[in-house]
């Protein structure tokens, strides 16, 4: 895949908000984004040379909204040159303006990269002007029907790190509380830009929606 040339830019403010100011209204909790929930769809990995999409399954494994934390696994099904589906573990930062803002501040993403990616989501447009000012730190997202997140793959679950695949980048993600759909854009300065991730909440062949739960002690 062609490597995207990274534009030089001043470093953006760190995304982690230090301390928690009282009165912050967090994004709404959504049962479709709770532990055990599964999503299925595709990631478009097309480039100028080829047109390609991998089937992708995601399952939420951990959710701690107080800390703006979400995690789970992502399974890529028809990865070329891989014998089995490739499963990775990812951790998510929920843009809640308490723990994290829209500015990434790491993973080689400048605030310009952030805004360029977030702006791909129509639901982000109303927040654009404020995000340009302060990363969205002062926004109230408690009534927003969308949850914005960054998902960063941390390790390969079922293959070794030398499998020839990379998890260097991360996803800008927008989850719809309305119908459980997930849209995302993969960002890695060394990969094709704007690889689109499209997932739908899946009931795994059941006649309705089913929910498990666990509780750590």
């Amino acid at each position, binding site marked *: 895949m062609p490597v995207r040339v990274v534009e030089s830019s001043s470093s953006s403010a760190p995304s982690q908000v230090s301390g928690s100011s009282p009165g912050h209204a967090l994004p709404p909790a*959504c*049962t479709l984004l709770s532990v*055990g929930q599964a999503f299925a769809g595709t990631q478009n990995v097309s480039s100028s040379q080829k047109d390609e999409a991998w089937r992708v399954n995601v399952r939420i494994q951990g959710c701690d909204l107080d800390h703006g934390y979400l*995690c789970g696994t992502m399974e890529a099904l028809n990865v070329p040159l891989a014998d089995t589906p490739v499963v990775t573990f990812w951790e998510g930062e929920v843009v809640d303006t308490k723990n994290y803002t829209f500015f990434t501040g790491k993973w080689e993403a400048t605030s310009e990269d952030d805004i360029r990616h977030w702006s791909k989501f129509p639901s982000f447009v109303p927040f654009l002007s404020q995000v340009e000012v302060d990363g969205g730190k002062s926004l109230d997202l408690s009534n927003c029907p969308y949850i914005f997140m960054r998902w960063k793959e941390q390790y390969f679950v079922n293959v070794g790190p030398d499998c020839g695949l990379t998890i260097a980048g991360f996803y800008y993600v927008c989850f719809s*509380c309305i119908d459980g759909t997930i849209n995302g854009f993969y960002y890695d300065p060394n990969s094709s830009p704007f690889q689109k991730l499209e997932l739908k909440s899946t009931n795994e*062949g059941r*006649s*309705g929606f089913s929910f498990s739960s666990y509780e*750590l002690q």
Partner: protein
Amino acid sequence: MPTSASSTSSNRTEVLISLLRSESKEVKLKALREVKNQIIGNRTKKLSYIKLGAVPKILEILSSSDDSESLILIQSAATIGSFACGVDVGVKAVLDSGAFPHLIRLLSHLDDKVVDAGARSLKMIYQSKLAPKYEFHKAENMAFLLSLLNSENENVTELGASIITHSCETTAEQKALCEAGALSRLLILLKGSLNQREASLDSLAAMTENNSEVIAKFVGLNSGRALNSLTELMKDRYPRTRLLASVCLIVIDHTSPNYLQDIGIKTKLIMILIELLEEPGRVGDEVPFALANLIADKEDLQQIAFEVNALDKLCSFLHQDTLLTKRLQGILLAIAELCSRLENCRARFMSMQALNLVTNALTHDCAEVRTAACICMRSVTRSVKNLSAGHYLDDMIVTPLVHLLHDQCTSVQVAALKTISNIVVDFTNRKSVFIQCGGLKDLVLLSKSMDSTLRLNSVWALRNLMFLAESSNKERIVSEITASTLTSLVCDPEPFIQEQALALVRNLVDGGISCIEHVFVEGGIIINAVGRQVRNASKSEVCIQGIYILGNISTGSESHKEAVMHQLLQEAPSVLIKFLKCSDARLRVAAIWCVVNLTYPGGPGSSVRVARLRDSGIISQIKCMVNDPCLDAKFRVRTALEQCKPVLGCLGVKLSATTEQGHF
């Protein structure tokens, strides 16, 4: 003929005891001195003298000597004190001999040295838990205690402080001491000798613990400078003083955090405690407990402690083979607190390969250490990242933990169960590792325990084991528990156990039709019990789990959905209406999901169900919720109404065309 050293020594012991009965005062005095010198710091000697009845003989000397015999009084009191020093058997022997009132009598002796000896001995006794509780509520006792604290004699004031440390336990006692003026006296003693300072710090901690009223009084003393005295002592040159001053500040911070808002003081406290970890003896043994106490439930302080390398330092002690029991226990508990909330601490802990060392402590001889090791592992295993990587479901960890489920000590069993609850969440399809090593059988056994804490935690572990388990493992779990035990647990007298048992059933029926079938065995005893709880329970958390079970069952076949309808509509008004109107948004959301699944399009009976839900008033209640303040509820309401809309339009035709078929 040559004799062995031990027989010479044992002969001498007997000789000395006989000399204690001598008529000659000089001989008695000499014998007392020799006994005292022999037993100081020698536990074995103390025990052998106690066995030979030395304590009552010495008391006889003390009680029969008149006030003029100062030397005898001093030596006998000092010897009694030595017996009581650091050995509980000695304290018991001294108390059983009736020495207490005689030692108290010495405190009013004219000779200061006699008073000293009496006070020292009593102090030794009050350092033991076996000492009698001092009754502060008696006016004469309080006056006597104050007289001790006000004494010019250093040992007597220390005795007064020791009595407070030993016996001040309740809020009423703290308040009574405060009103009697003990606080201001203790504050003065902070400026006294090293011993007075340390005894006073101990007492201040006892008097202020969990008592905001006493803390407010203390902080107001010396025109508001009392707290400064403590923060100054935090930097004292003596390690024990630094520790005790820190403990006092921790006690104050826990109850009245407003007085110690400056994060700088807390950072300083953490630094001091970490530095004190290196101290030998009692100070080093007690420091990890103080550190654990300071950072407990305080994420900001845990982060600070992590940043100043507390975790690395604590883990470095785990590598020492010679670590004493108490220190090991404290270190494990301090690591547990550090890793209780912060993922970066857990990651660091794992990277230091410390998990094996904690696993080793699971088989320690001392129950407190085994419990602490479980608590430590519980904190570390809260990492979903590591659970997802399958780092914990390993024979090396699981086997000793499962073994602890048979521990004689209930607190160890409970601690092991809590750790197991975390470990079995595992996302890597390795739950069978736990099942195969006998863990499932043991959990099921403990779920039938008479002890409700064991029952709760074993059901909790089973619930997490069931979470996203493969069908074959679900099968094994449910056949091990049996339908009748599961039903009893759902109906347990304890609501917390009901909640966990229902959550277990909820996880069981999340997995397709074959999994759902499990709740219909034996005439449907499980689903009937679930239905009863949903209709009758008063605790929201119980109802939430129950309604999710019904929601999950509603993702199954037509007959499964019908069974749920039967449970929900058998009373009018339907329990669903109560939940949909409930102020708890979690319950409203769960109830709406149930409706979404019951009205899920495509099934032959869905239109009939929509009609019945409408006739029960459920659809009109849902219509009132289109602007529910909870966004999750609002969007689920929309889904439910969208599903019902086409059916409600042509209801009459569909109603007559469908035949109901269900389990009931």
